[in-house]
């Protein structure tokens, strides 16, 4: 009798589980999974502004969109710029996060919560709003940045108008805006390192630098892999900064993959073409993620 009862309970609970899951799963299926699959299908069609009004004009064109993408000079610019942003901005941002985490977490540091809160504040701000603010900070004639640099004898820099400097300028903004987030994750990682390790190293006569290299860095490796992974995924999606500050200019030097996708898809309504761009981005992110995971597995 007791087995029958527990059997019935399992059956009952399964039904209840699916009931609890159904709203979320339905939403994710309809508004996430189906769109992802549709985007893949779309990327093999010539879906454009005419198709918006009349779906019957859509034709399958195989890999034509992908072929056209790879022949488009601005796509290669966008890809190069995005990689520049990811490969320079990503590590820089992680380094700043780690540095500030070490400073805030140091034994000597006073007012830890205050510094932590201040460093974190830019994270909660709207990217659009701070991009607007930084556009003025970067103003060549009356921006604060050039004014402050003038005290160091540095001549005014046209931060967002010079094709060679616009992307570095955007990277600085992105690092400023985001470093507090990874800093918190690093602080959590640092607090998980047992004090005994440092005490033992101290007894063995290891100096602060050796302790950092031999204990802190290895113990932080899992945290770092995770942080680098989420940072890279996030940085590949560069959009609002160039949209607000440079519109992709000057000379397309800040055109990003997502900005290109937005312009093709939602400004010119070349939606099949834009879907192909989105999938190229997806594949690039996927490759990086798998690389990270393989790296992580090898280290374990």
């Amino acid at each position, binding site marked *: 009798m007791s087995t029958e009862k527990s059997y019935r309970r399992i059956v009952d609970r399964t039904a209840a589980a699916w009931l609890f899951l159904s709203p979320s799963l339905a*939403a994710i299926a309809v508004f996430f999974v189906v769109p992802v699959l549709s985007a893949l299908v779309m990327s093999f069609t010539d879906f454009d502004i005419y198709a918006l009004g009349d779906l019957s004009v859509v034709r399958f064109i195989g890999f034509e969109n992908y072929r056209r993408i790879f022949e488009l000079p601005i796509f290669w610019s966008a890809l190069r710029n995005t990689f520049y942003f990811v490969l320079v901005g990503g590590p820089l941002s992680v380094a700043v996060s780690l540095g500030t985490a070490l400073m805030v977490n140091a034994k000597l540091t006073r007012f830890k919560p205050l510094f932590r809160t201040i460093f974190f504040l830019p994270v909660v701000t709207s990217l659009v709003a701070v991009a607007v603010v930084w556009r003025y900070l970067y103003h060549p004639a009356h921006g604060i940045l050039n004014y402050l640099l003038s005290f160091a004898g540095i001549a005014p820099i046209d931060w967002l108008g010079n094709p060679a400097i616009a992307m570095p300028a955007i990277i600085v903004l992105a690092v400023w805006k985001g470093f507090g987030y990874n800093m918190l994750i690093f602080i959590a990682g640092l607090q998980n390192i047992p004090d005994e390790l440092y005490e033992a190293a101290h007894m063995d006569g290891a100096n602060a630098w050796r302790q950092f290299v031999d204990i802190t860095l290895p113990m932080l490796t899992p945290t770092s892999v995770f942080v680098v992974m989420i940072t890279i995924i996030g940085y590949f999606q560069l959009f609002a900064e160039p949209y607000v500050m440079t519109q992709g200019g000057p000379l397309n030097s800040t055109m990003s993959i997502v900005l290109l996708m937005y312009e093709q898809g939602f400004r010119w309504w070349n939606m099949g073409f834009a879907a192909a761009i989105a999938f190229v981005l997806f594949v690039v992110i996927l490759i990086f993620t798998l690389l990270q995971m393989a790296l992580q597995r090898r280290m374990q």
Partner: protein
Amino acid sequence: MKRLRPSSILLHAGLIVVALVTMTPVLWMLSASFMAPGEASSFPPPFIPGRFTLEHYRALADRLQMGRYFINSMIVAGAVTIISLFFNSMAGYAFAKFRFKGRDSMFRFLLSGMVVPAQVTMLPLFLLLKTFGFVNTYMGAIIPGLASIFGIFLIRQFAGSIPDSFIEAAQIDGASEFKIYRSIILPLCRPILYTLALFTFMGTWNDFMWPLIIMTDDSRYTLPVALANLMGEHALDLELMMAGSVITILPVMILFLVFQRHYVRGIMVGKSNALSQVGPLCADE
């Protein structure tokens, strides 16, 4: 108390420099928003308003519909927060406390979805919502936020620590499954629900690309979209733009400062646990 050692002085000097770099743009934005027109772009750039004025805030409210955008942002972020909290908490609870076939593989499938950039979904989602007539409606802005994989994950981690005996005791008392969820799980999950509510509200408030796409008429703009649009017409009105930025940033900043305890916990608990999940996710392949 502690003697000031050179290393300590160096450390605190470094911390103060970083704090200044972090705060200067925000404080300058606030200060410039109270300056008279043109003052902020004079040379040398002033840091404190010579004459304190609220005229830009007044102009934003009276002429430029900023109150309306504020309400739009409130409606979208508020609705997404409330609805997704229900959806995610139910699903997270089911993943944590029910045993059913396919549970773990489905959960792993969901987690792997976190790698897909949201931009991939946007083109078909726009077309889908267009056929529903949801373009330029609050519904259109709310729909992608109805459920979030990260939210489900966060709740699952937290609900997993609730002892099974609590649930079994309620079952013996004859409580229905929904009653157990409502009167045992939800109250016990309150801390993580606060955290998730904050994450969701702030994330939706600051979201830019999707509302930019789905809100085609300026009466429906959320604050970030309105601000980016304002930049097109009023780029030269520096002080006005700063006031607009203040209105966009301040609500969430205050929310964060008041509830930061909950927010920080979400990152510390959620992310460090997410870490342990990445392992099994790939080890299985």
